């Protein structure tokens, strides 16, 4: 029994180390006073300073934030509607269309949207990326919202209706406040998914538009520099904060994906 627990713990520690060591190395090297990502030389904040002077990077970060903001707002509204509709009504096509973008390989959605935008003569850029991000974020928000609705006491709505509330009033005054944690968590999740997305942005951004992950991609394709460590560390920090806040608001979130 004791031997088995030791074996289990060893295996688990190996798995956790495997998961975290790479990320820790990126963070540590972002403070390393050396051009080579090879050994620790000394502490510096130079790479972060360089980052602030890098206009391309700042522009890319601005694009990413703008897209993530728009995509998360729109997909939260649409995803909440989809979640409510899936919980309450029977719309045969809706669950399929909500879940399919999550279930299929990402690259398929990227290239399908590329063909779609180009055939429509729609200029690839910030707008096409945001439209694409909304499409894949809707599903994630809908799942969180529907999970929240499934755990809700339906009799509360019946009580509101019995007391004379219209369906709209019952929704705004009873349902919405109750599912709000799910909605907020879904919004944070959509923001994170959008700001982190690489594959779909890669196909829908066109040549002139760069988001943060696209900028990181072109940097690591050319050469590995500690500047990438610095921007990666900042991006990880942002994602970490968003996800921890989202998980606090709605603990069930951690099991939806």
């Amino acid at each position, binding site marked *: 029994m004791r031997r088995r627990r030791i074996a289990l713990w060893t295996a688990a520690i190996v798995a956790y180390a495997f998961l975290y060591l790479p990320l820790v190395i990126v963070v540590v090297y972002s403070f390393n006073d050396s051009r080579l990502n090879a050994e620790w030389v000394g502490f510096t904040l130079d790479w972060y300073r360089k980052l602030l002077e890098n206009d391309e990077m700042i522009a890319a970060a601005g694009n990413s934030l703008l897209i993530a903001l728009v995509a998360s707002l729109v997909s939260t509204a649409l995803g909440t509607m989809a979640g409510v509709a899936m919980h309450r009504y029977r719309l045969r096509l809706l669950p399929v269309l909500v879940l399919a973008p999550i279930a299929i390989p990402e690259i398929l959605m990227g290239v399908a949207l590329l063909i779609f935008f180009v055939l429509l003569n729609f200029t690839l850029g910030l707008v096409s990326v945001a439209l694409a991000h909304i499409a894949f974020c*809707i599903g994630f928000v809908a799942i969180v919202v529907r999970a929240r609705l499934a755990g809700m006491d339906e009799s509360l709505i019946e009580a509101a209706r019995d007391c004379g509330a219209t369906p709209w009033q019952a929704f705004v005054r009873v349902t919405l406040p109750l599912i709000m944690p799910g909605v907020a968590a879904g919004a944070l999740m959509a923001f994170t998914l959008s700001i982190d997305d690489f594959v779909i942005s890669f196909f829908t951004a066109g040549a002139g538009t760069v988001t943060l992950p696209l900028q990181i991609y072109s940097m690591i394709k050319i050469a590995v520099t500690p500047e990438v460590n610095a921007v990666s560390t900042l991006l990880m920090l942002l994602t970490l904060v968003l996800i921890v806040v989202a998980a606090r608001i709605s603990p069930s979130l951690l099991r939806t994906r």
Partner: protein
Amino acid sequence: MDAHRPVSWRKWAVGGPPLAYLVVFFAIPTLIMAAASFRSPGEFGGLAPLVGEDGSLDITLESYVRLVEGTVYLEVFVKSIAYALVTTLACLALAYPLAVLIAQSPRKYRDLMLLLVILPFWSNFLIRIYAWMIILGPNAALAKAINGVRAVFGAEPVSLLFSSFAVLVCLVYVHLPFMVLPLYANLEKHDRALLDAAQDLGANAWRRFWRITFPLSLPGVYAGAALVFIPALGIFAIPDILGGPNDTLIGNLIKQQFLETRDWPFGSVLSIVLTVAALALAGLAAWIGRRGSAEVARA
């Protein structure tokens, strides 16, 4: 049926907008891509005109024929499936003990342990690939150690980066959380009384695992396998960044067709075959899983 009417009106008011959005920005693009697979490539990329100069309609199976004709593309498909399978098995081997440990831990620690599994997954996909560029890089400790040992035996130094090894390690790394979560969700529900009963009847730990825990966990195994296999099959960024010249997978081929060769019909064919293959194999796994668990339930 007057009462039915307002419900139907409301149903479309709530469900209609997201449905319309997904029809326009998901269903229609996918259908257009399916249609594009039956067309000819245009002279300057994209598609050839639907109605040619001689008035003939441009509908052809040429791109499908091209896929099965040359063995090159089939080889890439086989290689991609092999990479995805190895990834799935390696994830299973790493995830299983971890999931067992989490499921056996006191309830108050479980959420934290799960959170620790999921957090890396929420960090940026590219950063997680990039991290392996550092670890496997020629100047890093790992490569130096390995090549140091190789030098003792008089072997040529090897490059860890830009190799199949790098691609596979990163594939496992990126997909590991997808395997842990469904496994844990399944293992958590197991009834301890079964194991106790088996122990009372004299089964040792090894037998208890293979006769009880593992068969009961099969639905979780298959769910995890599907969650790892599907994205792993379509990946292009990992071989693109960490792979060598021989690590071209379907994803890279698709990217090439759309962004470099600009042969949309062939790229569409590849994307469709990829999706069908991924869903079919995942569906097969789910079906076997259901049958397997039904048999266990009967036994």
